[in-house]
């Protein structure tokens, strides 16, 4: 990478600097110093980016990992209240928090529901998105109007749609139950019954996720050459066979990417759960991120250590997932 950075300037600069810097020690400069002296211009130009990224990503990440190995909570962290300054008094406890999280049943049971939530959301979203994309890929009247309407959920800010759904779901006053009552069906306790609440949060997330899936897959569909279908038709392939052997392989690179992204997003889909049910009723819809939030903002004293422990565990899980997924794709001959 360094080789390609504006040769002429680097060289000119390198010559000058190398000569100027060779004071004192007679031994030739090391690799690092030579790299710095040759490419100092490039390094200077990317320095702001490196610093900003280091500050906004690296620091919190490092701090989170450190906190997860302490017993930090609201009462023993550093605080400055007006003129008073209370120093930090928390201790390093090693991997105790991780042992607690992994041996207790709270983490594992929350993880269980988080996996169910992720798998069902992603699979339903994918199937619906694929169906809609296929429908919209034909020449039908008012195609662009349909596309606009189907993209709408994506255009509305997430919290607005979630609050709208919360009104729809309201047991006594919500529109959904009023519609059901019109059909002579008893009110459904959408958010007050653990099973219905799970169903309800998945529906909302699917509703929010379909537009993205659809647009991405529609793009993929349009990149499949029409000649393939024509040729298959000539050979007498049925619609299902064409879908199975042309559409699906043709979409593979798009679908594998959107499935990976969608999995990561859904796994960490904080707003839907938090704004719709706050993880309730009880803990029925609590996923890992909302529980981590609860540790550090809802219970008191706030347990910063446990919250960061869960955060690090979430990161590890997603990294492992991405690595395994990538390997699986590579085995199928996917270059990614």
């Amino acid at each position, binding site marked *: 990478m360094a080789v390609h950075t504006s040769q002429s300037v680097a060289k000119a600069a390198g010559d000058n600097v190398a000569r100027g810097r060779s004071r004192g020690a007679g031994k030739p400069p090391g690799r690092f110093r030579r790299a710095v002296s040759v490419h100092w211009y490039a390094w*200077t130009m990317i320095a*702001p980016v490196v610093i900003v990224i280091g500050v906004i990503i690296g620091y919190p990440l490092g701090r989170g990992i450190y906190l997860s190995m302490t017993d930090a909570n*609201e009462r023993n962290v550093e605080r400055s209240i007006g003129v008073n300054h209370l120093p930090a008094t928390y201790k390093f406890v090693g991997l105790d928090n991780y042992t607690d999280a992994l041996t207790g049943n709270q983490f594992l049971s929350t993880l269980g529901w988080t996996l169910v939530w992720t798998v069902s959301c992603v699979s339903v979203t994918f199937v619906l998105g694929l169906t809609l994309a296929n429908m919209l890929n034909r020449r039908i009247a008012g195609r662009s109007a349909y596309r606009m309407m189907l993209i709408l959920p994506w255009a509305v800010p997430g919290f607005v749609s979630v609050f709208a759904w919360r009104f729809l779901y309201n047991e*006594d006053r919500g529109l959904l139950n009023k519609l059901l009552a019109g059909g002579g069906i008893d009110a459904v306790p959408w958010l*007050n019954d653990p099973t219905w609440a799970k169903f309800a949060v998945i529906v909302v997330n699917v509703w929010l996720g379909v537009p993205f899936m659809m647009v991405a897959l529609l793009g993929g569909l349009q990149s499949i050459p029409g000649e393939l279908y024509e040729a298959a038709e000539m050979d007498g392939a049925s619609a299902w066979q064409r879908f199975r052997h042309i559409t699906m392989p043709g979409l593979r690179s798009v679908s594998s990417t959107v499935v990976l992204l969608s999995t990561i997003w859904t796994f960490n889909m904080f707003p839907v759960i938090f704004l719709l049910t706050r993880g309730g009723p009880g803990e029925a819809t609590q996923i890992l991120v909302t529980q981590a939030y609860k540790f550090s903002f809802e219970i008191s004293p706030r347990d910063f250590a446990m919250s960061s422990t869960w955060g690090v565990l979430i990161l590890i899980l997603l990294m492992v997932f991405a690595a395994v997924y990538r390997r699986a794709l590579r085995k199928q001959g996917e270059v990614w």
Partner: protein
Amino acid sequence: MRRGIAATALVATLALAATACGGDSGDSGEKKSSGKLSGTVTWWDTSTVGSEDKVFKKLAEGFEKKHPDVDVKYVNVPFGEAQNKFKNAAQSGSGAPDVIRAEVAWTPQFADLGYLAPLDGTTALKNEKDFLGQAAASTKYNGKTYAVPQVIDSMGLFYNEKIFKDAGVKVPRTIDELKSVSKKIKDKTGKTGLYLRGDDAYWFLSFLYGEGGDLVDAKKKTVTVDQEPGVKALKVVKDLVDSGAAKTDATDGWENMQASFKDGKAAMMINGPWAVADTFAGKEFKDKANLGITTVPAGSAGQGAPQGGHNLAVYAGSKNLDASYAFSEYMTSATSQALIAKELNLLPTRTSVYSQPDVSGNHIVGFFKPVVDKAVERPWIPETGSLFEPLKTEYTKVLTGQTTPEKGAKATGDSYRKLLKGWK
């Protein structure tokens, strides 16, 4: 030459980044030594929007008239969010208000975390002896006073007189009567008997006390919520819901409860004086006489309602401590309390206010005063404010059938023991 440009660009970038991070020297509230108050007092009010907040806002503006150099910034923070919002702001040291209306259980907690300014010997506690002992109890922590009591409250059973008449039932005194009354109301009018909040553990307390239980015993340093009465109380609420006597919810409990009671869809609810102004705004209660209030139904061990209320506390980092003390004093003075009692039916915390004609003639204040006198005080330890979250989770789980009353009580007790180190 080119290098010169690069270096300049770099320096400029870094300088820009540096200034962006710095800055915000803050306005150090100009304080004059003349004794005349000036500056800004930001007040976080947590009262109900749409009814109570208007009166409190007007009252707060009255302080500006008395002290023209002081600018009162009124901010209404929803009650449910205020505790967290204040903690976030106070911990980071920026954005916290000068004065906060803190629920009684929050007061010792905030004081323990070092967020509150001690008020002993300041103008905030003028005429301190006038405060009801019960109200003052929650303001003390480690031998110091950290807040001024603003209102005191307890809970009662609110009912709709018209529905009761239509159904031909009498006011229930016990939980068994509550069940039979509910059933009759349902049969005769098709309406829900009792609306019970399922998403807030505070609404469970009168059932817990009614069975003779409590959350913890602070004197003996013992967790009591998972003892026999606690289990029994959870069984009682579960039975109320399962038998159809009560309707409950796990989300938007406050809005749903108020809406169905105000629209006459539910005949009863358990609530406190803070709900009265909002309830009168409902169409069923245009005629105020339609609202009946009685004591909460008794459990097997008798009646019991929790004592609650709100205090005004001053943030330790306030830049305008003197003005904040004066503001707290003004908001809790006898005159202000009488006005609040008259306009909002909230209970004063000063003994002297109860003898004022406007207050003594108020039938809601008249009803709640004896209830407050008998109400169960919570232990005023720093952890008091932390006891609800674990109970709320288990309470909702029991009501929605995800756990049994026995397991729910045990889980709550276990998390209390984790919280209160060394307790039995």
